[in-house]
């Protein structure tokens, strides 16, 4: 597999949200606006790259039966580091995203990629896989957040273009399911056309 295809498969062919359907909990929870979705996606990407590379380094030394707890400790450590750094040097970003950062630990994508890819591949490939998956996650979250923000609050990336409240259900949990389902249908139609 070429290096480029490792990155791009995470964005289209194996998009973690729209194709693999992993990490649906943070997806539905954080995408009330495009900015929130994008921030969550980028924070997850940072953790994914770090944890993937580190896990591919240590995978050879870990006995099979304690694999999952070991990976979780590694992931949790990286998430906490990201949280500390964000809190210290980017307080305004932390104010909007702080709530969601600890959620990255329980994101299935991070553990899923550690188990399915990083533990079987070398450090560089694992890092690229983390980057691709992270970008795929970020794109899906930003699009979903944008759709929900436009329909739900009548604004895009925080800029209001309609007065009033919009279709409130799209800001609430049921709207997340509806919007995700439609985006998934369109995405998979598009995907089957190009392949």
């Amino acid at each position, binding site marked *: 597999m070429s290096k480029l295809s490792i990155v791009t498969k995470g964005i289209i062919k194996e998009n973690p949200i729209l194709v693999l359907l992993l990490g649906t909990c943070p997806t539905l929870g*954080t995408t*009330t*606006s495009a900015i*929130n979705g994008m921030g969550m996606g980028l924070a997850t990407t940072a953790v994914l790259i770090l944890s993937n590379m580190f896990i591919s380094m*240590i*995978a*050879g*030394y*870990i*006995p*099979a*039966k*304690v*694999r999952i*707890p*070991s990976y979780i*400790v*590694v992931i*949790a*450590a990286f998430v*906490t*580091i990201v949280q*500390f*750094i964000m*809190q*210290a*040097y980017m*307080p305004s970003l932390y104010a909007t995203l702080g*709530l969601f950062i600890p959620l990255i630990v329980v994101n299935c994508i991070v553990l899923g990629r550690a188990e399915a890819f990083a533990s079987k591949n070398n450090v560089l490939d694992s890092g690229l896989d983390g980057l691709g998956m992270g970008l795929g996650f970020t794109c899906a979250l930003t699009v979903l957040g944008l759709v*929900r*923000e436009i329909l*739900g*609050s009548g604004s895009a990336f925080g800029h209001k273009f309609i007065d009033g*409240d919009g279709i*409130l259900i799209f*800001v*609430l949990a049921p709207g997340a399911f509806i919007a995700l389902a439609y985006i998934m249908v369109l995405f998979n139609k598009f995907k089957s056309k190009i392949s």
Partner: protein
Amino acid sequence: MAKESNFKNMTLCMFVICFAASALLSVVYVITKDPIEQANIAKTNSSIAIVVPEFDNRPSEEMFTVNVAGKEVNVYPAVKDGKTVGYAIESSSNKGFGGKMTIMVGFSEDGKIYNTSVISHAETPGLGDKIDKKKSGFSLQFNGMDPATADISVKKDGGEIDAITASTISSRAFCDAVLNAYAAFKEIKKEESCNE
């Protein structure tokens, strides 16, 4: 190839990983501790500057606490030309939809609410987080109200506050936090009149 899963290997592996992770975390914690504190102080200072009339002292250094119903409440006095012009009161409510909500409420000397500012909350993004001025004008309606005469509660409960659409609980919690701050303000006034 992965190591054999016997007791010794597994224990050792978990020990090393947990030890390394905690060591790394403690290093990062020590490095980021000061910047985080600085950021928090800067945040408190900027909320104080928003919620009280113009002052020329350093409220965060003259902070004192008052006891309201068994709880210590932080109060930051704002002084200009030697005269107290208002109090910024850090107040919280546990009635929020997502738990604790902390806000800064500024009172001018006559007991009217000068301004409010949200310090931290865990309300639903896109709904309850409209208590924040950046998201909606909800909190602006408190400005200039006098809790002694006005009924600080949402209209659904018979009060004068327009609740945020679909976020009555967050709106109620905000009112609750404002009332808690007012209780602290009354306490300050009581102590002042005792001292005179």
